[in-house]
């Protein structure tokens, strides 16, 4: 067994030193009747080659994004990640280290987290960001709870443009904790009236931009309305690349900004692991969930970094903690920060521009297909179209031809009368040929 260094001789010798006749003696606290005698009914150990074959067979049954013209988004995006990112995150010292509780021998982790916090604050236009959450959806859930704590109110209003999974995270949580949630109906063109919903019970308004249908939303009027009512504005994004081209939510007056960081540095991974970004204003710091890294000095007066303000956290504060989060998304946050370092100011802007350009091109081409209606007036790299018939059927038909066309809205909002809608994303990985293939195939499909 290649992962186990003890040899039978070692075990015999060690048992003697421990002073027990056999290893069984060490398990005697397990009630006798409950001790397992037989091995679990599972296969025995396998060599690397066998494991590779076994898993390779499963992998081969899936249609990978890079093997197809690929336009699936709605919360997770296929971007090109430079080779150095994956190389660096696999450095032993990053990958096999722990949460940096012993800062003197974890400065590597702590410094990149500090850099990450700075980058996220800059991207979102906020004053302070934490060391990552699990993903965008759970970060949204945490943001709502934070707003409840800050406002001492208990009602959240969720925009109809919020990703339905995100909305479900908030509603599931609220159903159990007894908080109120107002989920606005699907808002295909960002035309809902949110301001009219705010009241003195409202703790927070949760708005996504670009929203799940791809529309961009101007948060400024909402922020102003919120401010008047003592409501906190929580701005959500699922496509971090958009921040390279679109006004930062912080600059439009958001109080808390949360989002999904997957699209910078991280693979699609069938949904996880991803990395949640979380930023807010300094004045709300003490109610912020999650880990924080701060600058300090060592005994010799040199700059160093430590986890800080952990009195907010569960391992100190237990049932009074701001969150129960412990393990977060360390390595995904590292991938994010490395990719963003490689991009830099210029690179991110350029990347965002290409994304937007590709989506504009595709939207224009699709809009010309008879039977296709483009819903969006504004968008970044994703938009929604209306098709004749069920979008899901068309998507399945195209998948059978090796084209992954997008996300039918019915997948996210079943039974809400959106069956003819399709969300389509186009990033820098789509070539001109890819876009042409989609347009052609879709035109034929609906003809």
């Amino acid at each position, binding site marked *: 067994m290649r992962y186990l260094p003890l040899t039978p001789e070692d075990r015999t010798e060690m048992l003697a030193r421990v002073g027990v006749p056999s290893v069984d003696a060490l398990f005697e606290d397990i009630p006798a009747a409950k001790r397992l005698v037989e091995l679990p009914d599972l296969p025995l150990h396998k060599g690397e080659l066998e494991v590779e074959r076994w*898993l390779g067979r499963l992998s081969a049954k899936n249609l990978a994004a890079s093997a197809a013209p690929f336009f*699936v988004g709605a919360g997770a995006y296929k971007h090109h990640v430079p080779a150095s990112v994956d190389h660096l995150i696999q450095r*032993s010292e990053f*990958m096999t*280290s722990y949460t940096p509780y012993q800062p003197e021998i974890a400065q590597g982790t702590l410094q990149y987290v500090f850099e990450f916090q700075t980058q996220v604050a800059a991207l979102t236009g906020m004053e302070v960001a934490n060391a990552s959450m699990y993903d965008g959806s759970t970060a949204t859930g945490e943001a709502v709870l934070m707003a409840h704590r800050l406002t001492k109110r208990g009602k959240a209003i969720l925009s109809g443009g919020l990703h339905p999974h995100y909305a479900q995270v908030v509603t599931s949580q609220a159903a159990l904790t007894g908080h109120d949630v107002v989920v606005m109906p699907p808002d295909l063109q960002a035309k809902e009236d949110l301001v009219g919903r705010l009241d003195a019970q409202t703790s927070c308004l949760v708005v996504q931009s670009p929203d799940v249908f791809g529309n961009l939303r101007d948060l400024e009027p909402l922020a102003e309305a919120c401010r008047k009512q003592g409501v906190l504005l929580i701005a959500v994004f699922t496509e971090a690349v958009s921040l390279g081209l679109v006004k930062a939510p912080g600059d439009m007056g958001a109080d808390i900004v949360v989002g999904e960081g997957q699209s910078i540095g991280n*693979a699609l991974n069938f*949904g996880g692991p991803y990395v949640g970004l979380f930023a807010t204003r300094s004045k709300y710091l003490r109610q912020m969930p999650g880990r924080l890294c701060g600058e300090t000095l060592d005994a010799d007066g040199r700059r160093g970094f430590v986890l800080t303000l952990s009195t907010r956290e*569960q391992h100190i504060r237990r049932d009074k903690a701001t969150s129960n989060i412990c393990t977060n998304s360390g390595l995904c946050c590292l991938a994010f920060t490395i990719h963003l370092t490689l991009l830099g100011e210029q690179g991110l802007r350029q990347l965002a521009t290409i994304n937007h350009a590709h989506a504009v091109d595709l939207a224009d081409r699709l809009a010309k297909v008879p039977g296709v209606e483009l819903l969006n007036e504004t968008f970044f790299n994703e938009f929604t179209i209306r098709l004749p018939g069920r979008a899901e059927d068309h998507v399945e038909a195209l998948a059978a031809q090796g084209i992954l066309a997008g996300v039918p809205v019915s997948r996210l909002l079943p039974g809400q009368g959106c069956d003819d809608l399709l969300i389509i994303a186009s990033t820098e990985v789509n070539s001109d040929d890819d876009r042409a293939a989609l347009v052609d195939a879709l035109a034929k499909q609906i003809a």
Partner: protein
Amino acid sequence: IEEGLIFELGRPEASGVDLPEPAPFQSRLGGLERKTPIGLPGLSEPETVRHYVRLSQKNYSIDTGIFPLGSCTMKHNPRLNERMARLPGFGDIHPLQPQSSVQGALELMKEISHWLLTLTGMQAVALSPRAGAHGEACGMMAIKQALIARGEAEQRKVVLVPDSAHGTNPATATLVGFEVRSVPAREDGIVDVEAVRQALGPDVAAIMLTNPNTCGLFEKNIVEIAEAMHEAGAYFYCDGANFNAIVGRARPGDLGVDAMHINLHKTFSTPHGGGGPGAGPVVLSSRLAPHAPLPFLVQEKAGLRLVEDKAEAPGTFGRIGAFHGQMGMYVRALTYMLSHGADGLRQASEDAVLNANYVRVGLADLMSLPFGNRPCMHEALFDDAWLKGTGLSVLDFAKAMIDEGFHPMTVYFPLVVHGAMLIEPTESESKATLDLFVAALRDLAMAVQRGDKERFLGAPHYAPRRRLDETRAARTPVLKWTKPAPIEN
């Protein structure tokens, strides 16, 4: 050479990527263009690579030495796991692709579910929790939902939590809207059935118990506790952080557990990554299975299908995160399980327990054991009684270990033991490494006895940083880099 921050190294014109110029196009941003600089630094690729390589060298990791953090299970992270997680059919598929195009991925989820259920003897599994604490929340939400279904949610608001529990337990209970009631441990470090019985009442929803517990002991009375909970109409949540000790030796399902999360990054070797990502699937008893969150897998004629619509699952408490969970971690954990097999997994638990006991006996004469020199499970717990009067704290001892080239053990946890030092070597360490480790700790313990204080108070001397001022960091938080004001002439 000190390594600056990227903000100190970068120049706005530099970039580590080359991107093509897009064809001219008409923007559709509706006037929401960003007009101000973001404030990101630019670095070329060589600078970026060097920056992160240098940073990495300031970290201690399992790959460089024993990482005996109790309750954290820092075991070997096989590289095969990483290779498999990067197969395009796993790493490069989208959660919302047509399910027909990801049948292999769904099969993989089914397979890891099968392994987890077989090893735990439970009835259902919710894969989607992102980490242990998230798994706890998921399990407690299922319990809450079950109480709602029973109409007892308003009545049963209390969750029993032993003093020795991980901080996540009470935090989770509160998060889900319960109140926490503490249960003290007995003198011998395990939870008292009588204390549990006394704490029980019609207001109790559940107990959250870690087993093996955070003192490294198996809760002998677990079956009685479970029975007491069930008799009282309450549920038994088991914190599975220490499942590593008993895989193949006992099944939580046989012990009366209703819900337990499994830290794939502890028991099944997915890397800790300096703080994540983890994965915390929750196994459920048949009593809780109907209340599991979305999505879950069903086998249909056409293949496997993820149920994502609440309309199809009336008992569910809903959704705890977008999409389907930590696929990348499932692949790694399953790779590890397949590699070890039933025989290897059991052997791993045995070796983990043997290694911990070997360390225990190696240090028992010099350091103090709060519960006597009796067998432990996968971790050995010492306290600071032996440091009394030396003027040295557990923290000083821990920092001195760094100078010997070892990562310290977990200190000051569990809280129930004064000056706790919790050592978990895991099965990944060889006898030779343990011998070195024990010898180094013995040497330090003797230095304590000799009164060689400077070795401890000034420690670490040989780390990338001397002891860091955590108070300063908390008093005036500096949480991001800001451009220094220009120096006036």
